[in-house]
């Protein structure tokens, strides 16, 4: 469950206030900056009233006035209402065992009418509750909405999810007895385990029965009839008013539908001309393609250039010269001038000592000296002969292939040229396409699609808001019609109520049976869950106060004992009294750790709304408490004063998806700089974040505070 927005009307100081909450997963924190006496506790009470009814109000709503204390017109009844829009995620497993999540949006609306009877006296009509579900066609009321809401809330955990920083200390305060503390801790754990819901259900049934009996007794007197007539007239007046407003809403919705259609058509027309973003995307694609083609072309240019260094080209150009040289060398070969093979023959003759002609070749003989000279000359010329022989071979090897290699060169050129032509054509095409795209982009009207889409989004939002109001008004109308019906019924109604009473008693009996079964389950479940709560609480607490037991920190551990004491241990497992031996910051951290541990163990995913959690904490502890809390909540809504915000602005920058500032108009002129106007007290809202102030919220110390800056209007 996550809160999306809340609207308060005439709920004490909250005359007309709307709050939106961050539902971002990355930034689950909503900060409501508000100084003391600015309605923080009232907002907590109002939200709890919307979700849980009278039971959630201080003293269960008895003698708890809902309307503003300075209500100016005491002659007419005051309509009080709180609307809370929230989303809830349902999970299911598909056939493959994978979790599928779907999210629904609901609007819970609780309203009551109070009549001012005198300075200190007033009366309240029974409140009405309705739960509406958002669908494509608007907000549709759900029958049995309160029951569904109870299911969604899973358990009666209001004390834990709506936490007053001071009141949270009640788990460890010394102002109450040990027994009472244990009872509170035990109750908190049981609430989170879901037992409280059943118990409160039974209580609710009993109360309902008592209420019906009481109401039955109330009928009978003439004065009562007179009051009923007046009440009926009042209801009918309101019905007329609401019906008129509903007609207006119908008209506005019709107009919005027309406007919406028109914008849709404009978007379609603009899209037909070309979507600007799409055009830019396309242009980028084309540019990328052009870059790649240019790179390929550059490679091809180098390849083209290398063709002029090829041997095949040179061979073709010099084929006549090579051919002629080859013939010359062949001739040498034919004449036996190359390769010269006389040396081995002459050597052999010298060894035999007889010349080929038969004459002797003895050493010392002039013929022997002549043959020796011949061998020496032959050896000197052999390097040249070798080269000529090589050249001859080369010529004979290459000449037959010249035709092939030259056509090979030509084919190589053709291939490069073809590829270059192809690429250059493509580049030219791309240039043309880019030019056309640029022209189209230039010709696009200024009212671009992004603007039209914004317009469409605004219209959709307006339609949603109107649909929401329509749902609420219809709900009010149904309530009033129901009330009129109730006023119209007479003794027959009483008989009917008696019938209802009997049915309720039957249900009560059934609930008592269920309760008996559940009680027997308590012990077993608690035995398993309490140590787990204790373990998580200890981890979170030590993290928040930055205590490392291995570094000899004074605080070594915290635990929830089997007897439901929240205990803290120092060195050598000495037990510390949380209320006396811990400073204020650690006490708050301990109770917050307990609450977060309960949420963690129970796996209940609901918003944590915490009032002034960072009081009395030094900057480092504030930061770690904040980080730990954000890390363990699916949605965290904090009411913080300026002094609590101080020194953890950067953490808030990181975690806060929404920041709203509230101001009490009654603080002028003592604490506020500017006159908010108006003759009655009320809570004002502005959009300043935790680093800003403006004409609405500026306090007399803000301008001197270096960490705050005036927000531009």
């Amino acid at each position: 469950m996550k809160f999306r927005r809340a609207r308060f009307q005439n709920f004490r100081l909250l005359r007309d206030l709307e709050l939106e909450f961050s539902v971002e997963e990355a930034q689950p924190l909503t900060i409501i900056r508000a100084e003391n006496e600015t309605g923080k506790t009232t907002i907590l009470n109002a939200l709890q009233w919307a979700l849980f009814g009278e039971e959630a109000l201080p003293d269960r709503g008895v003698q708890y006035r809902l309307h503003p204390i300075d209500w100016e017109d005491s002659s007419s009844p005051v309509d009080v209402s709180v609307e809370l829009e929230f989303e809830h995620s349902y999970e299911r497993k598909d056939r493959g065992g994978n979790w599928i999540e779907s999210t629904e949006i609901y609007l819970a609306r609780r309203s009551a009418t109070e009549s001012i009877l005198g300075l200190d006296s007033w009366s309240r009509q029974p409140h009405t509750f309705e739960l509406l579900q958002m669908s494509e066609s608007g907000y549709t009321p759900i029958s049995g909405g309160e029951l569904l809401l109870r299911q969604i809330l899973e358990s009666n955990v209001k004390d834990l999810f709506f936490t007053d920083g001071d009141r949270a200390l009640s788990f460890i305060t010394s102002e109450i007895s040990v027994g009472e503390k244990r009872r509170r801790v035990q109750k908190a754990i049981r609430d989170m385990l879901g037992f409280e819901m059943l118990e409160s259900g039974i209580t609710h049934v009993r109360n309902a029965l008592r209420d019906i009996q009481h109401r039955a007794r109330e009928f009978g007197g003439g004065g009562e009839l007179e009051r009923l007539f007046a009440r009926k007239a009042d209801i009918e007046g309101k019905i007329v008013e609401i019906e008129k407003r509903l007609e207006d809403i119908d008209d506005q919705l019709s107009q919005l539908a027309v406007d919406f259609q028109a914008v849709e058509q404009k978007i379609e027309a603009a899209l037909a001309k070309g979507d600007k973003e799409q055009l830019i995307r396309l242009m980028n694609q084309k540019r990328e393609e052009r870059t790649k083609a240019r790179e390929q072309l550059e490679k091809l240019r180098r390849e083209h250039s290398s063709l002029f260094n090829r041997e095949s080209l040179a061979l073709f150009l010099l084929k006549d010269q090579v051919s002629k040289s080859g013939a010359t060398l062949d001739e040498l070969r034919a004449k036996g001038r190359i390769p010269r093979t006389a040396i081995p023959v002459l050597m052999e003759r010298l060894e035999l000592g007889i010349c080929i002609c038969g004459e002797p070749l003895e050493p010392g003989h002039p013929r022997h000296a002549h043959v020796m000279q011949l061998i020496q000359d032959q050896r000197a010329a052999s390097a040249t002969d070798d080269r000529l022989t090589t050249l001859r071979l080369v010529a004979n090897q290459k000449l037959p292939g010249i035709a092939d290699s030259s056509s090979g060169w030509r084919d190589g050129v053709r291939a490069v040229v073809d590829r270059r032509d192809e690429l250059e054509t493509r580049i030219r095409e791309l240039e043309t396409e880019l030019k056309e795209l640029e022209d189209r982009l230039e010709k696009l009207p200024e009212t671009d699609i992004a603007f039209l889409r914004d317009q469409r989004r605004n219209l959709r939002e307006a339609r949603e808001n109107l649909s929401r109001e329509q749902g609420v008004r219809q709900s009010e109308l149904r309530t009033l019609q129901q009330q009129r019906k109730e006023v119209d019924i007479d003794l027959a109604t009483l008989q009917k109520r008696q019938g209802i009473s009997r049915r309720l008693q039957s249900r009560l009996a059934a609930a008592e049976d269920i309760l008996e079964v559940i009680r027997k389950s308590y012990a077993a479940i608690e035995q398993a869950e309490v140590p787990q709560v204790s373990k998580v609480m200890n981890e979170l607490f030590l993290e928040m106060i930055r205590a490392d037991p291995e570094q000899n920190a004074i605080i070594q551990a915290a635990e929830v004992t089997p007897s439901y004491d929240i205990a803290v241990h120092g060195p050598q497992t000495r037990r510390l009294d949380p209320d006396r031996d811990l400073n204020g910051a650690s006490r708050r951290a301990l109770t917050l750790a307990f609450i977060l541990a309960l949420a963690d163990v129970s796996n209940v995913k609901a918003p944590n709304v915490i009032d002034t959690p960072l009081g009395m904490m030094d900057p480092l502890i504030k930061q770690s408490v904040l980080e730990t809390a954000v890390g363990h909540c699916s949605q965290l809504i904090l009411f913080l004063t300026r002094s609590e915000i101080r020194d953890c602005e950067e953490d808030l920058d990181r975690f806060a998806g929404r920041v709203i500032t509230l101001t009490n108009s009654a603080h002028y002129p003592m604490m506020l700089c500017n006159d908010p106007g108006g003759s009655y007290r009320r809570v004002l809202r502005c959009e300043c974040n935790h680093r800003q102030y403006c004409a609405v919220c500026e306090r007399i110390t803000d301008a001197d505070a270096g960490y705050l800056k005036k927000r531009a209007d």
Partner: protein
Amino acid sequence: MTYYNPFQNLELRIAEAYREEVNRFCQTQPDALTKTSPDDSPFHRYVDLWFLAVCLGARKGKRTKIDKPHRFITGEILVNDSWRIELLEFVAISLTDDPWIIDKPREIMDLANELAATGLPDVLSMLTEGGGKPIWNLTDQLLDLFPPGELHEDRSADVSASQPGAEPVS
């Protein structure tokens, strides 16, 4: 492994008068401030242009004396393309009718430089004539030296095929 390079320490030359123009058509231009495109400078190195000039000069069979030579590199560079060494020797043998000239590398290099001096104006005109970028002009004109083919026909329409010594290869 040692390579055969009789021209190792001999100079490759062009006429100083052509130096600037040759420079323009080579990618590895000394002192170039910007990288030139192969389309504008089709030859990677001086030696590549020089060798094409030698080929064209050899086809004409005419030596041209160089009055003021620019010595742009030594024959050491030829070791990377040993086929060029072979072709220079073939050219020398064919033009002198003396196979033993290969024992005289200096004479072969003098012959090559003078043949290059003959062929260089042709190379330069091939690069500049044709109305296209130098790489296309050169490609088209070289293709004109080849026997008619598909590409040749395509690209020869407006280019003269009157290079001296151009003979079809059978």
